[in-house]
Each structure stands twice: as structure tokens, then as C-alpha cells.
């Protein structure tokens, strides 16, 4: 009786996630979010029909990690750039990947009007409540009393305004089709986020409007925590203010 060794592959790096070192800090959620996008695009086999738009912020180099055509936008303008691409290539899949400063501060106008026009694109919004690349300044989504280098005594909402729940805001617009808030800090959440990203791509073919996936994430370096601590802190504080789940889902009759 012969005995055969069988190797079963349980995990494989997906092809569109390039085999290169990322510049992200240890424990940062960007790496996982990138991988999910690459997996969805590869599983749908749509690399040849996909154009990404990178923001200004920590994920400015997204195109160094995702092996697909990319346009790097000016700060806040990613959804306008994506609009330009999608309008001349309406049969392609177009997505933007933006942080909270990019999408909800300097680019608020573009975000709202892109969603209000119902551009058939997917906007992926990473919300970690802080400016990562510039070194920990206050973001539009920084929580009340949360410390940053520009709110060193904590965000005083009386002086500095309130965290902007832009996802709830754009869900109100008739141009949006699918709006959801997810996270990537636990395996279950990673699976849900992947499903949400997949829907965001699939729905583009329906020409029904903008899909918007917020991913609440962490920033261990600028929150000054270990990765594990940052995930716990996120669970307790960020998710209390930014609750996870679908905010707007397609009408079941249409979907």
C-alpha cells in the first residue's frame, strides 16, 4: 500500500496584490483592505476592465500594491477623477480609495456631488479618525475628546466642530445605491467587508448609482497604541460613534 502526501493550499496571495513590501505601519488596516480589493477583482476576473483612483494620504501609493491601472488624484478630488474616467469609459469598473481627510474634509464637495449625480462607481472610504501621513492631526472624523497633534487636549466640539458622519449623509442622496459601513479588525468583519466590496463592484454593471463602502479602521502609530490595543480602542470608541452595518441597501425588488 503506497502512501501519498497531499498538500492542501488553504491560503494564497491573490495575483493582483503585488509581491512587494508595503509602507504601512504594522497593524494598520490598509493592507487588509487592499488585499480584499485585489481578491474581489481577481475572483471577478475584471482586472482588464478596472481602473482605480488613489487619494492623497497614507494610501497615496495604493497603485504600488494593486497591480492594475491607476490614476493618482489631487487631495480630495478622487471622486471627480473617477467621474472623469467612468464618463468616458462607462463599461469599465472604476473605484476610488480615499481616507477621511481626503473624502470628508478637503473633498467633501466632490464626494457629495459625485454621489448625488449617482456616478456608477465604487467609493471605498477608510475612516481611522486621524491624519496618518502628515503625522496625527485632527481629521473630520476625529471623535469628541480624542487627542491629536492639532487637538492636543482632545477634540473640543465647541471649538472644533463635530465628527462628520459623511456616510449617513450621502446615504440620504437619491444618487447612492448601496451604502455600508464595515471594518477589517476581526476575521468576521474582514469577510463582511469583502462581501461589501464585491457588491460595490457587481452593482456597477446595473448603472443604478454610486456604491459607498466605509471601512472603519485603526491607526496604531498616531493613536499611539499597539495594534491590538488600537483594535480594542476602535471597538469600544470608534464603533460606538460609527456603528457597523448597511445604511442603504438596494430595493429587493430591483436587486
Amino acid at each position, binding site marked *: 500500500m503506497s502512501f501519498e502526501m497531499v498538500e492542501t493550499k488553504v491560503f494564497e496571495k491573490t495575483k493582483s496584490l503585488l509581491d512587494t513590501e508595503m509602507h504601512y505601519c504594522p497593524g494598520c488596516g490598509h493592507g487588509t483592505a487592499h488585499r480584499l480589493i485585489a481578491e474581489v477583482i481577481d475572483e471577478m476576473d475584471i482586472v482588464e476592465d478596472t481602473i482605480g483612483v488613489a487619494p492623497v494620504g497614507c494610501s497615496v501609493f495604493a497603485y504600488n500594491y494593486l497591480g*492594475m*491601472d491607476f490614476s493618482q488624484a*489631487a487631495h480630495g478630488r478622487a471622486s471627480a*477623477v473617477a467621474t472623469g474616467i467612468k464618463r468616458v469609459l462607462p463599461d469599465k469598473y472604476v473605484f476610488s480609495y480615499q481616507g477621511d481627510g481626503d473624502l470628508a474634509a478637503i473633498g467633501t464637495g466632490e464626494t457629495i456631488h459625485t454621489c448625488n449625480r449617482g456616478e456608477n462607481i465604487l467609493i471605498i472610504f477608510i475612516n481611522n479618525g486621524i491624519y496618518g501621513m502628515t503625522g496625527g492631526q485632527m481629521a473630520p472624523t476625529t471623535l469628541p475628546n480624542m487627542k491629536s497633534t492639532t487637538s492636543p487636549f482632545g477634540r473640543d466640539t465647541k471649538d472644533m466642530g463635530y465628527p462628520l458622519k459623511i456616510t449617513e449623509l450621502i446615504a440620504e442622496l437619491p444618487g447612492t445605491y448601496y451604502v455600508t459601513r464595515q471594518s477589517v479588525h476581526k476575521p468576521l468583519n474582514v469577510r463582511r467587508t469583502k462581501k461589501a466590496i464585491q457588491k460595490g463592484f457587481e452593482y456597477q454593471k446595473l448603472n443604478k448609482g454610486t456604491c459607498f463602502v466605509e471601512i472603519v479602521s485603526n491607526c496604531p502609530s498616531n493613536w499611539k497604541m499597539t495594534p491590538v490595543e488600537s483594535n480594542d480602542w476602535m471597538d469600544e470608541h470608534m464603533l460606538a460613534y460609527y456603528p457597523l452595518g448597511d445604511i442603504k441597501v438596494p430595493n429587493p425588488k430591483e436587486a
Partner: protein
Amino acid sequence: MIKLMKGNEALAEAAIRVGADAYFGYPITPQSEVLEYLAREAGERTGMVVLQAESEVASINMVYGAAGTGKKVWTSSSSPGISLMQEGISYIASAELPCLIVNVQRGGPGLGTIQPAQSDYFQTVKGGGHGDYKMIVLAPASVQEMSDFVKLSFELAFKYRNPVMILTDGALGQMMEKVEFFPQQERSTEILEWSTVGKPDDRDANVITSLHIKPDKMEEINIHLQAKYKLIEENEILYEEIMCEDADYIITAFGLVARICTKAAELAREKGLKVGVFRPISLFPFPYEQIMSHTSRIKGILDVEMNAGQMIEDVKLSVEGKVPVEFHGRMGGIVPSPDEILEALENYIAGGKL
């Protein structure tokens, strides 16, 4: 086909005929007819995408995205709106994207006036955005050239992968003249090798970016851009000389003002004063040597502009101090008359300045 048409409408009609793929713009006086004309005509005739953006900031970034796909893309605005576009223009120049931007200038600074002016020369030619970059800049002087230069602009934009600006003004945008249009061209279906259209298996990903974080790479990009601009200077200078052969005095002027100056030169000649007009058509590249070539014969230059004196700096650079250069300008939306230009010239001569 000959039509009587406003300058702004001629721009729009020419863009339809040249087979432009997309226009992104925001209304502003005195050029809103461009978007209005396109909204009526373009979609049905050629399928050109025509989108009213929420701002000039958005429209120039839509241009950035669409131009990155290798399509023929353009926008237009007037001075304050063009100021809002400067960041985007800098990105477009750095990422080497072909596109057309039209500035139908109005008087400034600030919100200014809706009347015509030429006070964006510095912003346009010397770089209104950040970084070392150049646009190719064409200054039409007639409604006919508004049409012709749209076609030329796209040819130059794709030849050099560089943004081109048509620098005109509210008077030319609003006035009606006869214009003969070139025949309708098909929209291109060619896929350019550098464009972001989706990555097939057999090539690397295309990335449109202006970010090169390592200084040696960023310097390399700059050296490449400067070499390209030099090539443009060597090959694409355009200018017009009117009655310059025997002239004792030359008036330098660009755009519509050059036509007013031509009338002034004719009036001068009726009085026995031999005056010619030199009109730079390409403001970048600027015809430095061509202006210089007249200095051995002429007694002086009067530069006339609808601003406080901007192109005059390039005219002075051209002549290297060999002949005197004086200035006559009107600001705030006032168009100078032929009589006042002639009077200014005569006064400078009588005062021993020219």
C-alpha cells in the same frame, strides 16, 4: 461651411467637429455659451460627454481622470474659474496628460468684472500653479481662429502629451464673426499605450501620477519636462507680422488687441508714420528671436495690452535693450481704441521715448 457665430460658440462647434470625447465645465460669464452650446448640440451629434461639474476644481480633475484614458478632453472657464483650476493644471502638466483648457478672460483681480481683459498672461505663460511646468498657449485674434486653434490645440496636446491653453477674452468670446469650419472628424477609438483603460495580461499596469517621492526621480521627471519644453520652443512658435517690412515702429500685441492695433497702424500710415504690428500667436513658446530680428531696423516698440503690462516683459527680453519698449494698456475691462493707441504712440515719439 461658413457661419456667423459667437466666439464661444465657435469653440464649442470646433470641439464637436474635431471629435472631442468629453467636456467638463462650470458656468461663468463671459463663456457660459460654450457649455450651453455643447449641451444642445454635442451629445446628439457625436456622443461627446458633456457634464456640468459642481465647480471648476471638480471639472479640471474630471479632465485629469478622463485625459488619463487617452481621450480628447477639454474644459473652459473665465479668469476666476481658471484660478481655481491651477492645482489641477499643475498635476496635468506633471502627469503629461493631453487636454485643452480655454480661458475666456475677464478683468480682475478678484471677482473683478465680466468685461474683457488680458490680465491672466502671467498666470498662463509663467505658470499659475506650483512647480516648473509650461502649457502650450495659443492666443486667437478672430472667431475663425477660435475654431482653428481648437483643432490645432488637440494636435499639439497629443503630439507632446501636454496641456494646451487657448488664451482669449470676453470680447472675442461674445462677438459674432464669419467662421469657416473644418469638416466633421470621427471620434478616435485608438487606445494609447500609456492610458489607464484597464490592464490586459500582457502589459504592466499604467499609472497616471505626479508623485515621485524620491528626489532623484523627481529631478529626472523635471529634466524630461524641460527637454520637452525646449523641443516645443524649437518647433511650435507661431506669430503674425502685419506691415512690419518697412516699419519704423512696431506695435506688439496679442489676441483681439492686435487687430485694434492694426487699425491704429493703418491710421498712423495715413499720417505718414510707418507702423507695423507684431502679433505673437503662441505665447508659449514665445517668438523672442522673431521680435529681435526687427531691432536692427526699427526705432522702437509700443506694447499694447488689456492689463497693466505683462507680455511687455517678454518683449523686453526679446530685444535685449537694443530698442526702447514703451507700454499702453487699459485695465478693468476697458478695450483700447485705435485712436488712443495711435495717440499714445505719437506722444511717446514726441516725448523722445521712442
